[in-house]
């Protein structure tokens, strides 16, 4: 039996410390989940993934009135004859 060395996967990370932004250069679920828990263990900071909802909550300067309106939006209906 021979030992086969593991092949590591390397991903770039950028931490924009001043603006509290982290950029992880992969979309692989296992890698992102591992990174999240590793980052939390290392720095006691929980990274929050940016997607539509979290972008509104964390990146916007919307008033609470605007946020309420956004949270009550429904998907656009664009087929001919329907407008919403």
């Amino acid at each position, binding site marked *: 039996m021979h030992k086969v060395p593991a092949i590591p996967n390397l991903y770039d990370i950028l931490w924009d410390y001043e603006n509290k932004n982290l950029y992880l250069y992969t979309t692989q679920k296992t890698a992102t989940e591992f990174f999240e828990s590793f980052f939390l263990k290392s720095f006691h900071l929980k990274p929050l993934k940016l997607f539509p909802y979290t972008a509104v909550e964390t990146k916007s300067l919307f008033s609470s009135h605007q946020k309420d*309106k956004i949270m009550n939006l429904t998907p656009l209906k664009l087929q001919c004859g329907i407008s919403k």
Partner: protein
Amino acid sequence: MLDIAIAYNKYKFLGNDYLTWIWFLIENNRNISSIINSKDVITIEIGNSIVLENKIGDKSKEKITIKGDQAGLEEGTTALKKGAFVTKINLICKINEDEYKFTIKGESFNITGLKLPKTNISGHEDKIESMVLENAFLSFKIFEVIDTLFLKFLEKRVSDEWKNKELQEIKTWIEMF
């Protein structure tokens, strides 16, 4: 804040609507720079792929994928007419002279295949730090455009102008096909 998993599913349509709106902006030659109040000259074009989805009934959905450098978008526009929305799109964004290419997914804002503009800094060992900083700077620039444009979309979406003007214009555009 809502539970993250619930919020992800509940509001993923905002990302898809956003990508559909970007397609509208591109096709109608809207001035991206003025929308996001940027001093840079910003243009966006559709790259080599676009994916649309259309819900059929409660559980089924059809998926329309168009790929290719010179691909026509007729199937996509027909799908739009039937109520489909964009879920993933490959975009070419120019900020002044710099060209960025990437694919963005609406529900997660995942960006894949990001190609940054070429820089003059070589990959020489003593230039590595400059190269990393330059790439970081360029990455931040494109991410800022994407994020700002999304927030502008939402600002418009909840404004009075949306129903009276923007939505009508989008519908007119779709009906033109």
